[in-house]
């Protein structure tokens, strides 16, 4: 194994592979920085060029490098202007933007990048450690287990609702309903689409996220007539943010583990890792009153998870040729075209290539974090720009990001609808995060419930995996309540 590890490293460290990895990291970082342009889109554009290459390690360096850092630069916009750079950085907005408003943008950014680095390194380590157990772990999760996992996600609506649990629950239900819009993918039956072809594909998650958070913040800035940050100084926040990650090292490790976990389960999708980690932080950390109001732990948890998730998604891809998400599906297409055949060989005769993936994931993360750290301070200064400068900039990001959902004028109309909804929710104290989470999980929940029931009837409820996971769900809901009651008792 050591020989394969060294072979993999040597392959990645050749001039050609390293140059391609740098190119991949650069493209991945820029794409992560720009809201709306997802990693899959860029991978799809790169595919025709890549499949003509002959060296599999060079292909790994370019594509895995690009994919690994897709979420590293996305906190820039999530934290600074409340617009998620990628679908994996939605939860970062909740505390990141609040920190920016308090003049702690530099601290939030450096914490997010350091957490990304740690998550990006823990991911490959877990991938490496799990090599012997890859197959049994992946095979243990069927549709019923996936359904309970989506339930677990939805149970987090409670912790994301703050002081308004009923409003949060209703917002979550509305999110699930929004997720049902379009043609049912099982049968093609139209639901809430009113005969409009635009709605057949459902409502884009990016439009919901941009509308709920981007425009309402613009309106608030414009009416307040101030800059984003209330204090006009960066202070010592930058180094503090780095220290924060090590102060909360156990949370960083746990969140990274959650990211790997979500990544390796093919079927949960790429947008849930940050929410799972964020909710886990609220559920398990002490002194959680500040979550949602600018707590750095609310930045560390999602950012560690969304980077480690990338390594996790390579587990089923390499072990079975079953991609963990759209990005890995496209990478798999390129792998097959250049002669890399995922499957048992990747753990035996082709172990060198598996190690090339692991090394690329690690090195690409280090490179991307270095680039982001270098730009963090100057970019953080945009928080001090007056509202008449920053609001148009945010609007451009939001509108371009929204239009890139389907490249249709109707995207802008939908953006307006969700912006109005987001503004009204904000104004009347309705939590917006549960609605977004409902949209993220709604489709998966419905699909896995359908498959569980049609395949197993009601017997699926008695599967050991389901019972264990269900116990964990109940425990994760009840534990914070019990903790609160205990705290009240002691005080």
């Amino acid at each position, binding site marked *: 194994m050591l020989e394969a590890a060294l072979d993999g490293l040597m392959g990645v460290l050749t001039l050609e592979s390293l140059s391609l990895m740098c190119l991949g990291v650069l493209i991945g970082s820029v794409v992560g920085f720009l809201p709306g342009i997802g990693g899959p889109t860029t991978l799809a554009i790169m595919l025709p060029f890549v499949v*003509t290459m002959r060296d599999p390690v060079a292909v790994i360096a370019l594509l895995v490098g690009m994919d690994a850092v897709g979420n590293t630069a996305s906190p820039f916009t999530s934290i600074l202007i409340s617009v998620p750079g990628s679908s994996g950085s939605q939860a970062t907005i909740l505390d990141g933007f609040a920190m920016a408003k308090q003049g702690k943008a530099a601290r939030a950014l450096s914490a997010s990048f350091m957490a990304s680095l740690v998550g990006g390194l823990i991911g490959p380590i877990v991938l490496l450690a799990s090599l012997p157990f890859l197959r049994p772990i992946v095979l243990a999760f069927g549709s019923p287990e996936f359904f309970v996992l989506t339930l677990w996600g939805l149970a987090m609506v409670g912790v994301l609702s703050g002081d308004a649990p009923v409003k949060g629950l209703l917002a979550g239900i509305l999110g699930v309903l929004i997720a049902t819009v379009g043609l049912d993918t099982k049968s093609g039956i139209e639901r809430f689409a009113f005969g409009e072809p635009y709605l057949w594909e459902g409502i884009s998650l990016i439009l919901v996220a941009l509308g709920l958070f981007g425009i309402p913040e613009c309106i608030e800035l414009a009416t307040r007539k101030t800059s984003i940050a209330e204090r006009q100084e960066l202070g010592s926040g930058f180094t503090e943010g780095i220290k924060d990650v090590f102060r909360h090292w156990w949370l960083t490790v746990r969140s990274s583990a959650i990211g790997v976990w979500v990544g390796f389960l093919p079927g949960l999708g790429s947008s849930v890792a940050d929410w799972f980690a964020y909710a886990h932080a609220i559920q398990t950390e002490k002194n959680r009153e500040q979550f949602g109001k600018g707590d750095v732990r609310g930045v560390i948890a999602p950012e560690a998870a969304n980077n480690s998730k990338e390594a996790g998604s390579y587990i089923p891809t390499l072990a079975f040729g*079953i991609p963990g998400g759209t990005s890995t599906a496209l990478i798999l297409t390129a792998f097959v075209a250049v002669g890399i055949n995922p499957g048992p060989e990747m753990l035996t005769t082709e172990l060198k290539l598996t190690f090339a993936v692991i090394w690329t994931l690690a090195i690409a993360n280090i490179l991307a974090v270095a680039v982001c750290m270098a730009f963090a301070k100057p970019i953080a200064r945009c928080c001090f720009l007056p509202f008449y400068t920053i609001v148009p900039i945010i609007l451009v990001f939001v509108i371009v990001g929204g239009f890139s959902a389907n490249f249709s004028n109707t995207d802008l109309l939908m953006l307006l609808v969700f912006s109005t909804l987001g503004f009204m929710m904000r104004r009347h104290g309705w939590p917006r995060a549960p609605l977004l989470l409902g949209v993220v999980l709604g489709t998966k929940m419905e699909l896995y419930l359908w498959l569980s029931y049609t395949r197993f009837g009601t017997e699926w409820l008695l599967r050991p995996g389901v019972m264990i996971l269900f116990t964990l769900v109940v425990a994760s809901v009840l534990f914070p309540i019990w903790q609160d009651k205990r705290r009240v008792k002691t005080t």
Partner: protein
Amino acid sequence: MMAARILSLKMFLIAGFIGALLIPQAGAQIDNNYYQGKTIKVLVSSSPGGGTDTTGRLVAQFLPKFLPGNPQTIVQNMPGGGGTIANNYFTANGKADGLLIFQDSSSGLGNFTRGGNRIKYDPRKYKALGSVTRGGSLLMIRKDAQSRLSDPKAQKVVVGDTDGIRTWLAMGVYGAEFLQWNLRFVYGYSGTRELSLALRQGEVDVWGTQSAKIINEFLKDGGYNVLCQQEDERRRGFSNVPTFEEVLGEKKPKGVAWEAYNAWTGPNDIDKFLIAPEATPDALVALLREAFFKMNSDEEFKRQATQFFGDAWRLRNGDRTQTMIRDATTVSKDAQEYLTKIRKKYDLPTGEQKK
């Protein structure tokens, strides 16, 4: 006032005339530079990663090489409803300018044959540009489930599918009907990758695909057998696997039942086909057809296609594909009714679903 009206009418007519000149007309010559600087969107009726998507991406990569002007191409995936969503979208939005082409699969034809109020397209009206066929479907079964197949008292063997319409599914349904195979059908899986995983997990016991590459991976893993194959003749590389007709033997149905079987499985022969919208001018269709078939002469195309599909793939030209689409989707009323009846019997979606 009157003069102004006449002037505006004149301008309208001139604009209309110029507009008519700009749109390529049927039978007219296409400028060799027509595609220069333009972008063709290749709409794909599946999610990334499966056979339809791979074919669409191969087309997007190689077709421009053989089109004058070497246009750019982009791929847009529009999965769902077994191709219904993409087909409806293509029919509603496809223009006659050769800038939107559609990579569909046999499922889109199967859904049309099945009918129903959500089908808002007619594949017989499309202009076929060509197709990639990978050989007939093969039906795989987990070894640990095979003994239950012919034991009616045992737990049912589960067949998994995406939308309950795939052409290979006909083997399962007819096997259950005429060979008393002990089967149950579950559909709703998102695509190839989810079904691959479900088969490995044992959540489903039977699954079919045309991809020799996928089948060989399963066979290499052990634990799986190939039950039968859909072609009239045995596929190269699978000569030890009987055809479904051989498996049926004397129990092969006759008359309308077999006509219905052929109607269901007919699109299988067409496999992955590329089409242009109904109104696309003949000259533009000819250009695209020629470019499609010329991909066959490209060594790199052949190498990649073999990597993806195994060595049984071949290209079929647009004319032949057009004829096959028409034949596969022209089904008698009796056969249609039989299909609805037998699909209902096995809890598979029919064309009578209500909104």
